């Protein structure tokens, strides 16, 4: 499928378990992003990646790990899930631009519940 996809769409897990959320894009965009969406907070950046093997922290990165061995994939791992990580997670991608002209394209989201 063309575009940006996320899997799973829904996930229930328990406190302390490791969880990996997948993100895949078919556009060969350089940049990829992970956000979490919580009521009253809007979208908050967790991690972003400028290219394969280049990642950087966002404002809420604690408890999360990312990797990017291939341009098209950007998995997000919760090393030891906590209830506060219950949220909706969105992956996004965009073309590279030093001037920031390009918009981001979003995946459909993963709703994660940590019990």
């Amino acid at each position, binding site marked *: 499928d063309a575009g940006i996809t996320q899997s799973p769409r829904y996930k229930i897990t328990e406190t302390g378990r490791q969880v990996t959320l997948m993100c895949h894009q078919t556009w060969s965009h350089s940049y990829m992003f992970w956000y979490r969406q919580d009521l009253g907070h*809007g*979208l908050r950046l967790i991690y*972003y990646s400028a290219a394969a093997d280049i990642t950087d922290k*966002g404002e809420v990165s604690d408890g999360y790990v990312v990797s990017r061995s291939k341009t098209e994939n950007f998995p997000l791992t919760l090393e030891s899930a906590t209830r506060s990580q219950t949220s909706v997670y969105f992956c996004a991608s965009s073309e590279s631009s030093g001037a*920031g002209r390009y918009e*981001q*394209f979003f*995946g*459909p*989201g993963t709703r994660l519940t940590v019990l």
Partner: protein
Amino acid sequence: AQSVTQLDSQVPVFEEAPVELRCNYSSSVSVYLFWYVQYPNQGLQLLLKYLSGSTLVESINGFEAEFNKSQTSFHLRKPSVHISDTAEYFCAVRSSNTGNQFYFGTGTSLTVIP
């Protein structure tokens, strides 16, 4: 870093009435401005964007937004809303000095009442 303020968290409006969703941002350096729409249980979709040129930008479904540099605002308007416009709307900013990072507002929930 940028900050983006959407003052109204919820906006109820009757069908066919006009609406304005407000967005203000913090930095006065060169900026690129975006409005995204999120329908229930979906991801965000780009509604419109301002990059340069005319300060009034329009979307294909009747929304428009005006970039006001002196007021550091990018308010979204529609002269006559439809039931199908019910959604969450996010304002976002990218600036030339923050590269490829987006800064999002907290969102405005627009509810169109029949």
